[in-house]
């Protein structure tokens, strides 16, 4: 049975509708990652779950109980605030131990818990400092520490790692995963980090302007996005979206543009759902457009196009190559030091196994 359930949740602040009917269920021990553009309502959603702000309508169910009327301190939820919300008058130690103290945990236990969390977060040397004497990332870790020492029904994390360096972030991610695995805690997690979302979630919910776009496993969200928004939003660099028309025999998509370009119909879409001449949008991720050397030997449907290179962006581990196609620009992912240079023409291998097709009007995916 669902452990955390949001039913038609609405929330407005000062006449503005922030959340417009959110329905999500999460099983016990689930790890829900909330993603969405800045300002879409993620923090607001967490606040309603925590009970810090009353909902306008709808129900919040935790462990089979409707908790709308329950005071935050009674919901047994731990939360990491996006803005940290550290107690300025307390030391780091005091901040972390506060929740335990409020729950009457005896001092030795408290100290042990704080020491453990501090070790995990690598802030042992800061325990006696006040928040004002910490760097941004250190403050964020203290905010994490306050949640980590607890053993609640639900953890809510609001961008808890955004100000940490990549290395630390990886370690913290592992730590949160371990916490999740070891305690079986149910977690709702907001992040803007794709990797975080993809690697940690058992379920991802994509939000836009207070409306839920898709809920699914990370793989589903990435591979078969429900609509153009999700497709465009998840993945960095974003999915290439190409306008085109289904060919008369429905075996290929003819891309718009001055020159006629044909791409074979991706296997993700069933021919029956399409009509010849129908306008569609074809979505294909950058890593599915490569050079010949990176071509996936297992790929079924592949088209190679010779395109002029516009821009080359090396990231260290890879090189992104931008080229014009069908009146827009596509991004392809090549090997680092691939030798691709702007201005020259180059063979781009399209692995259409991984492409998806959308209906332009409704923006929904066609499957």
């Amino acid at each position, binding site marked *: 049975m669902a452990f955390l359930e949001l039913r038609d949740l609405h929330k407005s602040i000062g006449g503005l509708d922030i959340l417009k009917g959110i329905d999500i269920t999460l099983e016990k021990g689930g790890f829900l990652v909330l993603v969405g553009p800045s300002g879409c309502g993620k923090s607001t959603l967490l606040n309603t779950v925590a009970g810090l702000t009353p909902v306008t309508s709808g129900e919040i169910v935790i462990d089979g109980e409707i908790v709308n009327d329950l005071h935050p*301190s009674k919901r047994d*939820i*731990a*939360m990491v605030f996006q803005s*940290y*919300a550290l*107690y*300025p008058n307390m030391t780091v130690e005091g901040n972390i131990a506060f929740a335990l103290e409020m729950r009457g945990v005896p001092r030795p236990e408290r100290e042990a818990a704080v020491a453990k969390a501090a070790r995990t977060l690598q802030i042992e040397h800061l325990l006696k400092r006040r928040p004002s004497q910490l760097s*941004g990332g250190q403050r964020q870790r203290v905010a994490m520490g306050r949640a980590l020492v607890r053993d609640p029904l639900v953890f809510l994390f609001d961008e808890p790692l955004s100000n940490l360096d990549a290395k630390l972030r990886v370690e913290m991610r592992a730590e949160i995963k371990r916490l999740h695995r070891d305690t079986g805690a149910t977690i709702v997690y907001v992040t803007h980090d794709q990797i975080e979302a993809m690697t940690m979630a058992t379920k991802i919910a994509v939000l836009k302007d207070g409306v839920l776009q898709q809920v699914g496993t990370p793989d589903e969200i990435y591979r078969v996005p429900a609509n153009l928004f999700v497709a465009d939003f998840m993945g960095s660099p974003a999915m290439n979206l190409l306008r085109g028309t289904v060919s008369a025999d429905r075996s290929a998509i003819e891309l718009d543009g001055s020159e006629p370009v044909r791409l074979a119909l991706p296997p993700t879409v069933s021919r029956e759902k399409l009509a010849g001449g129908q306008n569609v949008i074809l979505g294909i991720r950058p890593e599915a457009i490569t050079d010949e050397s990176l071509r996936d030997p297992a790929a079924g449907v592949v088209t190679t196009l010779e395109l002029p290179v516009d821009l080359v962006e090396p990231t260290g581990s890879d090189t992104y190559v931008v080229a014009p196609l069908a009146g827009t620009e596509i991004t392809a992912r090549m090997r680092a030091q691939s030798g691709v240079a702007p201005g020259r023409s180059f063979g781009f291998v399209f692995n259409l196994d991984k492409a998806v097709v959308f209906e332009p009007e409704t923006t929904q995916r066609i499957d």
Partner: protein
Amino acid sequence: MSAASPTVSPASARIARFVIYGLLILLAIVYLLPFFVMLITSLKPLAEIRSGNMLALPQNPSLDAWGKAWGSACIGVTCAGIKGYFWNSIQLVVPAVTISTILGALNGYVLTKWRFPGHKLVFGLMLFACFIPFQAVLIPMARVLGMLGLSNSTAGLVLVHVVYGLGFTTLFFRNYYEAFPDELIRAAQMDGAGFFQIFWRILLPSSGPIIVVTVIYQFTNIWNDFLFGVSFASGERAPMTVALNNLVSSSTGVKEYNVDMAAAVYAALPTLFVYVVAGRYFVRGLMAGAVKG
């Protein structure tokens, strides 16, 4: 937090500092002038005061007036100076200041962090209460105190001061807590802290400056109050100001200005002490590092 960063170019910084200190010292001198008059007067014998040059330095200064004001001046039929009246005032001022400050802080806390429909009206009413003319409440208050059996008692006077100080203490705290980040309250709720725990552990430790302001205000007003003191606690329980007034304001008797001045300074000492001690809590950057954004 000050805008005067330590990094300004040395020359203009020095000029700016010079101006600031110059201005402060000048103002301090101006503020001290009346005190200077009081001080030199207290050191002069009466004959010298009578001779009329009030701003002249004493020709043969003496501390007699100070001794007399402290220990032997007549206040009513007892001629033991004002020293005995400190205790009366302390007994009054400590509970009254404490209670009104705590209530004010709690009210401010509720009115900013636990808002309920109509909170503004409640606050507005409490604010407007600050303006009630004290003259107008004397008689009904006397009646109520009489009915409560608190007439002519310190407890009654404490009640009066608490009641008429509440508007101010609430005002001070509410306006201070208004800027206190709500996130911290939320965080504390998540941490399982209750209403009073949040207040006690989160807000109060960050309220140093406003507690100081409130204590200064209440202490000063209660210590210096005459009207309520004389109406509700005259006689043996008379607070300091009533005693001071008795010493100073005898209408057709001989006036001893030197003793009066010395007594006035004595009477102000506890308040000055509070000012000096309280100043330590005017600390900077109490909320630094609490929230991002």
